[in-house]
């Protein structure tokens, strides 16, 4: 293994698989990209856990980049512990953590072997889809804080925020769904079995009448749990909708269930015939199954998040010269807090320290570092990028700017959008069915055949219930959601998919959406630099782990053996060092003694050798690979626009793709929203692709809001679709695929309408026997499920999507 990796060209980190830059760290015949990765390897090898590396190739998480120095002192607080530890048994504690970095089977293996790394850990159990781990530990041997630090040390930093401390209700809900399906399935199967004799004999299978009664009443008894327990959500939801004078998908289902049940009771009691209880419980069973299938896919992604999940749960309050870790909710205006590097500012505060750098990408999506001075206001959500900084609270956490921004766009965006396509079809279908049934009834009544008329009325309603139609959409969308999520596109629900189909205008945000936040391109602007000067600059930049120095050192590339002495790191300003007879400084413009250039839009690092400023490195975010091809592909089908908060430096690069009039720069969040409204009022259906909270209002205004994210635990505003950055270049294919969903749906619809017509043919004549009903129902269900399954996969293959 190590023989191959010796080639300088493709040196990969043994731990995380990142390509190693110039400064590889060799250890144990293996190469590591950074000290972080190496130390994880060391811990694992010391505990004989290297099996981790044989399960999947390069399973680790890169430890370079943002190294958050963690301060977990608040975990020693009793109230914090109580909310994280959900069960205690003597000294044994059960705690659950969310580990966003979990991503492969190696992770599961390593995490479940946590007990081998510390004797205090008794066991650990992973839930992969939810990305959680349940740790049982002995509080006498290891503290909660130590468990968290252990997890962090092996590369899985638990996500601790206000939301993770809240009550957990989801599990119970999830289980009740399983109970409902199980009970409906059980009753359905047994009623089917009891109905079997009836199917073939028209109610006269048994010579003894009482056997007939036994069978009928048994099925009636079995159908009660379905009606009362399993089908309850349909009743609740349709009553709620009717109260608001709306018709949703559940109303026709409820109608069908009620009609089927009442008819059957009538038939059983007065005519001792079997009725349609099997169809009724079948409907409920299949609908529940379809919904479960549709909702199952991604539990760990939540589309509607609470702002609390992004802000820290505890802060370090500065009281009487001592630091004290207190929960955010206990903060009062006027409290002094200390914020360390990489920590998130919990609420709007005034800076007390002389100067500090902040990263607002969390709030704005634009990755600029902003310099702030004493007495300036810092908004909640900013990431502190300098050393230890002191601040004074100016607003309570629940009144901060970010919280207000967040709350302002929580209004329900589809209030006036009552019926979408499927519901629209099923609504008119239901109306038609009601009319046909009534017409058939009146027809028979006129001929004096009251009995047949009544049967016709009821059987028409049951057999032609729009459930089959609804099943089409439930299963088709379920399949499509699964396939889309396999391609890094997570759609909130089926209604969003219906809206995605009608999109004709796409609006892109630039930074973080079209450009990548992790890759950057660097240019040097200034006088010609001699070879030995380059080497000295590279060697100096190499010494710092600051993202800007990393970018510079990557840009210079050459690793020199040049030694730097007198290395000094000036917090928030730059670095300096001496190399031979060269005195070098790399850092901000201001630090170089130049006038601060406010309009500068890209991050820049100035270089100075022996007092002479050579020029500066301009560090720009780079366009994601394939993005321009993607845009021109999308353009064939949609109008595309750019709404960017940045200055228009990129105008000339983007003009060929977007066209002059389609570029909008320097847009404030409100302007973005207004622009989208303007397009919508000219009858355009707008999809907005963005990434930060500054796009949140635009998301809620647009018809479909797509959050483009680099990794799944990244900050994201409430949205309709979450699109992984690496799936962005597939956007044209994804959109085509969503539109093809209509074909699948139509085909499945056609089939179910055909079955319904056959059923109706018998029903209006009043000769629909339970046999026909019992045959038609499962056949139509099975074929619809089959069609939606195979068609979704066929179209996915056509678009070269992963299945």
């Amino acid at each position, binding site marked *: 293994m190590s023989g191959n990796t010796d080639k300088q060209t493709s040196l990969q980190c043994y731990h995380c698989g990142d390509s190693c830059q110039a400064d590889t760290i060799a250890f144990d015949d293996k190469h590591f990209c950074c000290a972080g990765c190496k130390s994880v390897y060391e811990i694992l090898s010391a505990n*004989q856990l290297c099996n981790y590396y044989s399960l999947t190739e390069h399973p680790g998480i890169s430890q370079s980049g943002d190294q958050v120095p963690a301060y977990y002192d608040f975990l020693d607080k009793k109230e914090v512990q109580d909310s994280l530890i959900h069960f205690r048994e003597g000294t044994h504690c059960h705690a659950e953590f969310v580990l966003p970095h979990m991503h492969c089977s190696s992770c599961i293996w390593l995490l479940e072997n946590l007990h081998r790394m510390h004797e205090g850990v008794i066991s650990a159990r992973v839930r992969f889809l939810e990305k959680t781990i349940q740790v049982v530990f002995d509080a006498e041997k290891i503290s909660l804080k130590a468990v968290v630090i252990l997890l962090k040390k092996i590369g899985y930093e638990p996500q601790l925020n206000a939301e993770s401390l809240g009550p957990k209700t989801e599990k119970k809900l999830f*289980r009740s769904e399983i109970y409902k399906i199980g009970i409906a399935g059980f009753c359905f199967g047994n009623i089917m079995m009891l109905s079997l004799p009836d199917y073939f004999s028209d109610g006269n299978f048994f010579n003894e009448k009482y*056997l007939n009664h036994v*069978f009928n009443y048994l099925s009636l008894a079995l159908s009660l749990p379905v009606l009362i327990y399993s089908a309850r959500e349909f009743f609740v939801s349709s009553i709620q909708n009717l109260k608001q004078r709306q018709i949703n998908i559940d109303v026709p289902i409820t109608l069908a269930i009620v009609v089927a049940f009442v008819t059957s009771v009538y038939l059983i009691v007065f005519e001792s015939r079997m009725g349609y209880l099997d169809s009724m419980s079948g409907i409920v069973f299949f609908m529940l199954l379809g919904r479960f299938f549709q909702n199952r896919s991604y539990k760990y992604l939540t589309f509607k998040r609470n702002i609390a999940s992004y802000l820290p749960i505890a802060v370090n309050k500065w009281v009487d010269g001592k630091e004290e870790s207190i929960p955010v909710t206990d903060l009062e205006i006027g409290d002094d807090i200390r914020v360390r590097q990489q920590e998130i500012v919990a609420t709007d505060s005034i800076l007390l320290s002389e100067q500090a750098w902040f990263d607002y990408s969390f709030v704005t999506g634009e990755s600029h570092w902003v310099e702030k001075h004493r007495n300036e206001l810092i908004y909640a959500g900013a990431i502190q990028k300098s050393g230890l900084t002191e601040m004074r609270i100016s607003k309570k956490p629940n009144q901060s700017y970010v919280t207000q921004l967040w709350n302002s766009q929580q209004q329900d965006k589809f209030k006036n959008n009552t019926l979408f396509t499927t519901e629209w079809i099923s609504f008119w279908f239901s109306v038609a069915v009601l009319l046909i049934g009534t017409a058939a009834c009146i027809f028979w009544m006129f001929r004096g055949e009251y009995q047949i008329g009544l049967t016709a009325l009821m059987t028409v309603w049951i057999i032609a219930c729009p459930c089959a139609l609804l099943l089409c959409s439930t299963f088709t969308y379920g399949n499509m959601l699964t396939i889309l999520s396999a391609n890094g596109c997570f759609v909130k629900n089926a209604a969003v998919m219906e809206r995605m189909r009608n999109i004709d205008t796409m609006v892109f945000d630039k930074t973080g959406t079209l450009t990548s936040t992790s890759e950057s391109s660097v240019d040097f602007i200034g006088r010609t630099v001699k070879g030995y000067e380059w080497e000295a600059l590279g060697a100096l930049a190499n010494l710092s782990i600051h993202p800007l120095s990393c970018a510079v050192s990557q840009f210079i590339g050459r690793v020199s053996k040049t030694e730097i002495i007198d290395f000094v790191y000036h917090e928030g300003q730059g670095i300096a060092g001496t190399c031979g007879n060269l005195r070098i400084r790399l850092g901000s413009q201001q630090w170089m003694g130049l006038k601060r250039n406010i309009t500068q839009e890209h991050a820049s690092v100035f270089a100075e050798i022996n007092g002479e400023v050579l020029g500066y490195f301009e560090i720009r975010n780079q366009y994601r690979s394939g993005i321009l091809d993607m845009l021109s592909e999308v353009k064939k089908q949609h109008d595309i626009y750019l709404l960017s908060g940045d200055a228009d430096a990129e105008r000339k690069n983007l003009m060929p793709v977007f066209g002059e009039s389609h570029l909008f720069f320097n847009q404030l969040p409100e302007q973005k929203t207004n622009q989208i409204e303007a397009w919508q009022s000219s009858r355009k259906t707008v999809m907005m692709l963005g990434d930060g909270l500054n796009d949140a209002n635009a998301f809620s205004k647009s018809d479909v809001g797509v959050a483009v994210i680099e990794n799944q635990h990244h900050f994201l505003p409430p949205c309709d679709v979450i699109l992984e950055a690496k799936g962005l270049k597939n956007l044209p294919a994804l959109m085509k695929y969503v539109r093809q969903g209509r074909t699948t749906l139509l085909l499945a619809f056609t089939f179910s309408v055909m079955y319904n017509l056959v059923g109706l043919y018998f029903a209006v004549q009043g000769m629909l026997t339970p046999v026909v009903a019992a045959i038609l129902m499962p056949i139509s269900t099975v074929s619809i499920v089959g069609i939606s399954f195979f068609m979704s996969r066929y179209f996915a293959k056509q678009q070269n999507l992963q299945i």
Partner: protein
Amino acid sequence: MSAMILLIAFSLTVAVSFLIAFIVSTRKGQYDDMHTPSIRILFDDEQPQNPS
């Protein structure tokens, strides 16, 4: 035909016992996670390399 009654009673008993087993297993959390066990089963048991 009274054999029918017996058979039905028997089959229902069997079916109900399965339903109860299902409910009990759900309550114990066997269905809480339907994905991880499928991965977990593939891990090999290792021999302890270091008998410490």
